[in-house]
């Protein structure tokens, strides 16, 4: 597997400029001769599709939702980082770069991360020009807040709805192009297969989720911006429809999968309340600016929080990490919550929860100020739990929230399949083993607005100009594979619903490949998952017919892929015998802190599919740190 990162040579701050100059261009009149497919319409997909259409390419954009505006980027609450240094607090492109490399526990590529930091400032300009209603101060200038893993205020936000507003900005740019006829939009279409001809990505096969029709769409290049795979845990903060199908089918067609075990478990989500639960709801990390996290000092303390006196509370993040306190990075905050609960000091009816307490902040700033900053989050909490967080502390617990792993891409966002580009959360590139808060929005928009418009041209200008038509054997084979799979799923007529299988898989993954992992547990999971998958293909019950809206069929297809991906995640977690960022191996720790092994694991693990039932190959892309020196991450 060719894993050339294609990072340009030269000093880190000049790499991207140099590369932009060296890349090949497609002249303006020729751009309309190229067809590009974009799968996904979240921040990366919508911004990428709109920007490429503005340049003149013919773009076809696909999403499974009924409208591109509904992609799950919309749910991001807290904010977007940018190295604007509007606060005059010492921020810079280099500091954002440094914080991100360190936050990712030295498992990301320096070149990519520096580019991301450079582009971050342009994203804010772009969004303001589109009318994104960022929070402002009375003087009319933009406001900022702080986020985890940073000691400067560089996060721009739009109340607790930053993702919504950024996505609507990108969606509106996309709709403008749809109105102008340069993007053709295919809502309620799900990608089922990637078409590879002569080693290059040349199209996709989709299922129309209304009519059931299986359709082929051909193009000169294919971009996947289909998000993360954290729904493998069943309970997650993802939208219910988020799935791994697009990237998984690409993996099975030869795209390398980078670091599948790197998942982010977000520390502040509303705890599980019962077995019927279908999803977990995030409470923005921004709440940690003013909320203090604590548990009782005593085990099994069942008093209500108000009755526990100050000196019997353990503000464990402030105690363990005095310089970052409640704003410690997500992986660290999550693990600390787990430890407190494992200790028997968890709160709430299930004992799986910790308090996030606003009493001090309300006392200091007044209820009005807190309401202005977090009103909608408090309302959301109250709606779900029927508790009033102005009066009693919130109860929170970690939940699956983001996947740093994804399809391997080079500096150009190209996967190991030429012509297949991967953007946003779907790729593995910029966050290493842990993503800092407010960096997902930044990466999605950087990839879509400012990277892919350049790199796609570089590819198209050099790719051989051959046309593929729908009679090509590869096209026919891809269509036939989709049909066969649908028939197979509908033909099993078993007893268990796809959701029941998904729940079971989620339990295995959470237990053995969640916040803490070990050799024995992962070995167990690697036995349990194939057994569950075998049962699925014998006993799943998929009702209805293929030629109509069929939510049971949609779900079954996604669960089938999760059942394969889950195994790869466990395999990757087992082989990475170190702890780094969100990947915590119990055997490798210093008193609860992740212990990296730079000698053996300072690399990206890239998995290569070898065929069903065969063990995939683990390839390696070594990581080099020339600017930020490898060091133990400390937030103390």
């Amino acid at each position, binding site marked *: 597997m060719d894993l050339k990162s294609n990072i340009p040579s030269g000093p880190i701050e000049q790499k991207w400029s140099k590369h932009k100059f060296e890349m090949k261009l497609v002249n303006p009149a020729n751009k309309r001769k190229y067809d590009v497919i974009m799968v996904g319409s979240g921040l990366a997909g919508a911004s990428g599709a709109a920007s490429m259409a503005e340049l003149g390419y013919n773009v076809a954009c696909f999403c499974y939702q009924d409208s591109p505006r509904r992609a799950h980027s919309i749910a991001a609450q807290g904010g977007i980082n940018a190295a604007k240094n509007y606060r005059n607090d010492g921020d810079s492109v280099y500091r954002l770069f440094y914080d991100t490399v360190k936050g990712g526990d030295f498992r990301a590529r320096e070149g990519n991360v520096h580019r991301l930091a450079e582009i971050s400032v342009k994203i804010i300009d772009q969004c303001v020009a589109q009318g994104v209603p960022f929070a402002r101060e009375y003087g009319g200038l933009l406001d900022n807040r702080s986020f985890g893993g940073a000691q400067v205020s560089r996060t721009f936000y739009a109340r607790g709805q930053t993702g919504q507003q950024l996505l609507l900005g990108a969606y509106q740019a996309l709709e403008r192009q749809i109105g102008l006829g340069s993007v053709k939009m295919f809502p309620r279409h799900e990608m089922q297969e990637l078409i590879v001809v002569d080693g290059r990505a040349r199209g996709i096969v989709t299922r129309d989720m209304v009519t059931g029709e299986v359709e082929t769409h051909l193009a000169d290049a294919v971009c996947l911006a289909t998000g993360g795979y954290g729904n493998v845990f069943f309970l997650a903060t993802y939208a219910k429809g988020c799935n791994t199908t697009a990237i998984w089918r690409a993996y099975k067609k030869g795209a390398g999968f980078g670091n599948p075990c790197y998942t982010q478990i977000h520390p502040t989500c509303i705890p599980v309340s*019962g077995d019927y639960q279908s999803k977990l709801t995030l409470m923005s990390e921004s709440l940690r600016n003013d909320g203090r996290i604590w548990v009782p000092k005593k085990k099994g303390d069942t008093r209500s929080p108000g009755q526990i006196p100050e000196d019997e509370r353990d503000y464990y993040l402030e105690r363990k990490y005095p310089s970052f306190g409640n704003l410690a990075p997500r992986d660290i905050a999550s693990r600390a919550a787990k430890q407190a609960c494992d200790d028997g000091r968890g709160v709430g009816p299930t004992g799986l929860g910790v308090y996030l307490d606003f009493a001090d902040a309300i006392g200091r700033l007044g209820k009005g100020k807190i309401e202005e900053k977090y009103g909608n989050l408090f309302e959301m909490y109250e709606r779900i739990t029927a508790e009033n967080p102005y009066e009693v502390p919130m109860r929170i617990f970690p939940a699956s929230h983001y996947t740093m792993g994804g399809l391997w891409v080079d500096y150009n966002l190209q996967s190991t399949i030429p012509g297949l580009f991967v953007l946003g959360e779907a790729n593995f590139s910029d966050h290493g083993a842990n993503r800092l808060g407010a960096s997902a929005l930044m990466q999605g928009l950087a990839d879509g607005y400012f990277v892919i418009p350049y790199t796609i041209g570089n590819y198209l200008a050099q790719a051989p100009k051959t046309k593929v038509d729908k009679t090509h054997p590869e096209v026919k084979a891809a269509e036939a594979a989709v049909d066969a799979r649908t028939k197979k799923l509908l033909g099993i007529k078993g007893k268990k619903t796809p959701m029941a299988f998904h729940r079971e898989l989620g339990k295995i993954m959470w237990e053995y490949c969640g916040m803490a992992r070990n050799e024995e547990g992962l070995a167990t999971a690697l036995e349990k998952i194939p057994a569950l998958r075998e049962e699925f293909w014998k006993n799943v019950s998929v009702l209805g017919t293929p030629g109509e809206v069929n939510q049971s069929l949609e779900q079954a297809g996604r669960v089938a892929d999760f059942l394969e991906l889950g195994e790869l995640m466990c395999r990757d977690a087992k082989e990475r015998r170190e702890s780094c960022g969100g990947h915590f191996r119990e055997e490798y720790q210093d008193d609860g802190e992740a212990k990296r092994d730079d000698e053996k694991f300072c690399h990206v693990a890239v998995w290569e599919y070898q065929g069903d039932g065969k063990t995939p190959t683990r390839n390696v892309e070594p990581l080099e740190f020339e600017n930020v020196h490898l060091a133990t991450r400390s937030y103390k």
Partner: protein
Amino acid sequence: MGGGTGKNLNLKLHVWRQKGPNVEGQFVTYDAPGISTEMSFLEMLDVVNERLAEKGEEGIAFDHDCREGICGTCGIVIDGRPHGPRPRTTTCQLHMRSFADGDELVLEPWRAKGFPIVKDLMVDRGSLDRIIATGGFITAPTGTIPDANAIPVPKENADIAMDAAACIGCGACVAACPNASAMLFTAAKITHLAMFPQGQPERSSRALRMVAQMDAEGFGSCTNHGECESACPKGIRVEFIARMNADFVVAQVTKGRREAQAGDSSAG
């Protein structure tokens, strides 16, 4: 992960079932015993669907995605009210503690000419996207753009813009309106963009085009019932409709003059 702290309810559901857009639909009654008050409304439907599946019956099709009240995908008319009884709450955020043991609930899809039924409780809201595509944007192609702080925006304006921009495009306003009007939706976008200096160049053409598309999609007109505001899960205010009307009137009055100056009525 126990059963939680809630009580259990026994409910009866009368659900609109319709195979497809061109097939006649009907209400079908289902018993839903043992529903925990801690469940969300959609989790209750998940349970009903799982039980149907166990009997080999096809589940009730309904749209949903984020299940945290922000994507705007879900939407069921519950006992005649879009998104159900709780104010400022989407269907997915509505919890069963809002209901009582023994309740009978009527579940219907959004009903409006502009929202053809896809299946059961799912509708096609592509009309709302098409309204945005005609003018619900600021033309700002990706590229080199002045610094974000180059143009200050009064906080008051930015706050009004944010209030309007909070619309999630669920369509409850249309479903609630006796005229099936999409004016609250359209007005929210027009207001949002009109509050910024960057939105001024296209302000008039935006109002004209979006209103024209709204009419073309078969949505009715506003006759000041105000049902839309009370059904809106995000508290979008009817005063935005007044702002839209003002922009629309100004745009119409000045249209001739602008066309003469520009020499091109399609600019924008």
